[in-house]
């Protein structure tokens, strides 16, 4: 039985390594910049959704305010870079730490809320963050920050002529988020999180520190999402409040996980692989019509999935349960 379990864990790791290797090779064959762009965004959202899944999927604290951490990562990096000349690599770490700290600071009052009330709080807080940045003169207010371009450089993590470095970074981020999830899944934290999600009162009676479990999940989740935000800021080289902290990011982190299978290891990757290319293609195709059409596509998809497969697409592949008879 233990062997089965260890074998399953190893199989997941091998599949992930194989997928990562295949992904790493695709740019050799795919030279189209538009397609490369879609691949970068897909990998990025897969990583973001995987990170979101740690707090919302495993620990069950549904957040629709993760855009806040995404934006904080972006802003921390670019403010440090444009105002103090700190290299984006350090800015990225700083953004992660700032976001993790803020996530815990917010968790302190809000993890006492349950269910829908918690969700509402996350939305409201992210909107407040958005408004603050809209009005914060020093941070560029509504005008945002344009990242000065000084030519291709790994040190400054900016590239004009090629998208490949961004692609590999997005891949690395996705792999990191997946690996962290894989590793935590079979740890005390992973078990605590799932217990907290399913039944906090029972978890408490079994010695689980419910409050700190949530805090831990929030910190890891926010840190990784902020790293994604830093990356995105470098990738688009211009940020303003809406373009890195808008509500759509919160949705785009949640939807892949929900579509693929919330609280599962592979759900976010699968969901992102379907959803993001679809969004980008519909946007490409119905360009100029605003954000309307792609959002209609999402909406319809999510409604259909939640009606037909409430546990996500992955539940299609789950093996039939073993049936044992109790003695």
């Amino acid at each position, binding site marked *: 039985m233990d062997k089965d*379990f260890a074998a399953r864990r190893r199989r997941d790791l091998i599949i992930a390594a194989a997928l990562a290797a295949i992904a790493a090779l695709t740019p050799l064959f795919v030279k189209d910049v538009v397609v490369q762009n879609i691949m970068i965004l897909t990998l990025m959202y897969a990583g973001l959704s995987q990170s979101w899944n740690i707090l919302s999927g495993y620990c069950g604290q549904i957040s629709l305010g993760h855009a806040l951490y995404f934006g904080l990562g972006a802003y921390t990096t670019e403010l440090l870079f444009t105002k103090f000349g700190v290299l984006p690599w350090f800015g990225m770490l700083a953004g992660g730490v700032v976001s993790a700290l803020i996530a815990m600071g917010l968790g302190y009052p809000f993890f006492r809320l349950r269910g829908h009330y918690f969700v509402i709080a996350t939305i409201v807080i992210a909107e407040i963050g958005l408004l603050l940045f809209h009005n914060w003169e020093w941070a560029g207010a509504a005008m945002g920050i344009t990242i000065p371009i000084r030519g291709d450089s790994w040190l400054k993590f900016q590239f004009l002529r090629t998208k490949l470095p961004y692609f590999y970074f997005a891949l690395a981020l996705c792999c990191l988020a997946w690996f962290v999830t894989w590793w935590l899944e*079979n740890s005390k934290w992973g078990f605590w999180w*799932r*217990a907290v999600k*399913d*039944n906090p009162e029972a978890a*408490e009676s079994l*010695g689980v520190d419910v409050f700190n479990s949530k805090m831990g999940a929030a910190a890891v989740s926010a840190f990784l999402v902020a790293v994604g935000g830093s990356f995105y800021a470098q990738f688009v080289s211009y940020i303003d409040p809406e373009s890195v902290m808008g509500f759509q990011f919160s949705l785009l982190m949640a939807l892949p996980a929900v579509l693929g299978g919330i609280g599962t290891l592979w759900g976010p990757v699968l969901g992102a692989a379907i959803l993001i290319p679809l969004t980008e293609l519909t946007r490409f195709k119905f360009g100029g019509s605003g954000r309307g059409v792609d959002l209609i596509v999402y909406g319809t998809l999510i409604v259909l999935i939640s009606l037909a497969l409430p546990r996500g697409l992955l539940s299609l592949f789950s093996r039939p349960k073993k049936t044992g008879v109790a003695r």
Partner: protein
Amino acid sequence: MTALLETRGVWQRFGGLVANSDVSISVGRGEIVGLIGPNGAGKSTLFNLIAGVLPPTQGSILFDGEDVTRMPAAVRCQRGIGRTFQVVKSFETMTVIDNVIVGALVRNTVMREARRKAHEVLEFTGLAARADVLASDLVPAEKRRLEVARALATEPKLLLLDEVLTGLTPTEAQTGVALVRKVRDAGITVLMVEHVMEIVMPLVDRAIVLDLGKVLVEGKPTEVVRDPKVIKAYLGDRHAVGA
């Protein structure tokens, strides 16, 4: 030797309602103690006070020589108090083995050891064949047993059982009784809240009867069931006359 568990003058008020008034009980090491009483006697409240769901309005609770009155439930679990819930609270999206691992993690920080401990407990409670089934797919009697298994995985000194035998078929209840005996034989003290007198009485070493929030009678089960006060509390005045 001091008692493993002791409550001293415990009161619990919910607004104007007094659920426990001046309850002082003690449970010795290695005992199986039954906490019985009619509906609304305050059994569940006392049970929850001992488990640490809420602190008593007044009074103190001592466990293993330590004052645990203000300790949260999770810390009490670490100190050695395990419990089950009257309305089962399985982790429904997790498998049976994973449910038990959560409990085992209290004393085993290494995953491999926690998993081994969990398998041991499933073997002990007769759930081994169901290890990889989702908790939501268990039948009610199995869910009750999972509650016990999870609590046992925390390696408690005192196991609090909240109506684990209620609502089971006679065969299932007998299996449950055997399990409780087995638990005690493994050196764990048991305090059980129970409703069904005829199942509990042969099982327990001592019975504590609560009525209207107070300790009514305490003693050997055979004496307790004959006590006029107990008969009156359960059945009303008319039936106590002959006693």
